[in-house]
């Protein structure tokens, strides 16, 4: 069975009862995209108010999500895992964060996760910027506001935001923020930058 870089599962994923939401909650979502092992799961866990959770999707050889169960054979299917968490913003607004594998072979899943999102935070590692190209293509195609977050790995070279912007050929004005995905406040700052990036063109009208 093929797998898209399984994220580490919490040791006891169902150990806690679900934390319920108010029935009138207004739900929003952001996507945390990036190549394998760049820190998407860490980021989501850092910000989430619940223990971050995991879902597995089943995909056909043709790359479709399995939802019709005729003749499905697990051996011929790919599973792909995604992590998510949530953050209650006020008495009604709830923000969901979805880690999403930015790989073209999981395009159907990507489209489903990205659809209707407020924006995308793309995590990159300066030691492996080339690994981000495929994700960047998909992010550009999604047509949503996005911000690039440089997750700092001790072994990776330090690059200025301008260097990262040039290396990834980002449009001028694309915010690039440095962060440590283990640091909750740094992750929140990246989400604040992303939200401001969504808001600023609307305020100029």
């Amino acid at each position, binding site marked *: 069975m093929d797998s898209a870089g399984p994220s580490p599962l919490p040791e006891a994923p169902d150990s806690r009862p679900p934390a319920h939401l108010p029935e009138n909650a207004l*739900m929003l979502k952001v996507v945390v995209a990036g190549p394998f092992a760049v820190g998407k799961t860490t980021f989501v866990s850092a910000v989430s108010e619940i223990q971050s959770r995991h*879902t597995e999707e089943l995909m056909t050889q043709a790359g479709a*999500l399995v939802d019709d169960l005729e003749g499905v054979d697990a051996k011929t299917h790919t599973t792909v895992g995604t992590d998510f968490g949530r953050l209650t*913003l006020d008495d009604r607004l709830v923000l969901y964060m979805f880690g999403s594998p930015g790989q073209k072979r999981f395009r159907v899943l990507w489209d489903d996760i990205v659809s*209707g999102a*407020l924006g995308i935070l793309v995590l990159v590692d300066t030691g492996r910027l080339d690994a981000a190209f495929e994700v960047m293509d998909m992010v550009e195609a999604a047509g949503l506001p996005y911000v690039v977050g440089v997750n700092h790995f001790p072994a990776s070279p330090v690059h200025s935001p301008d260097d990262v912007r040039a290396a990834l050929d980002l449009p001028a004005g694309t915010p690039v923020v440095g962060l440590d995905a283990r640091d909750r406040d740094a992750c*929140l700052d990246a989400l604040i930058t992303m939200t401001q990036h969504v808001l600023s063109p*609307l305020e100029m009208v």
Partner: protein
Amino acid sequence: MTPERASRPLVRPYVETGGRARADRCALERITLLHRVGGDVPRGLSDKQREAMELLRAGALSLVETASYLRLPVSLSKVVLADLIAAGCLKARPPAPLAAQHDPEMLRKVLDGLRRAKSSS
């Protein structure tokens, strides 16, 4: 279908949902909010449907959270949950529409909430 390994969770769903695909599940999204309607759980539900009703007994949850507790792929959970919605057991509340997401006032509320979540605030 006989699963080779009964412990593998990905085989069960096909049994659970009986191979049905419903048109109305298309309206369901990952962050659709689900909550129970009425007090009683009708008879004749599948195991997963009973489990979903139990999960939602104490309040509302997003579809994706429900799926993760049910240990089912999201796409299959939609089939299970769409049946419960069609049967009037659950109500689904769609996520914030795009118009709301482009409302500066709402985005400022998002910013305020994110700032409040920081430890220094």
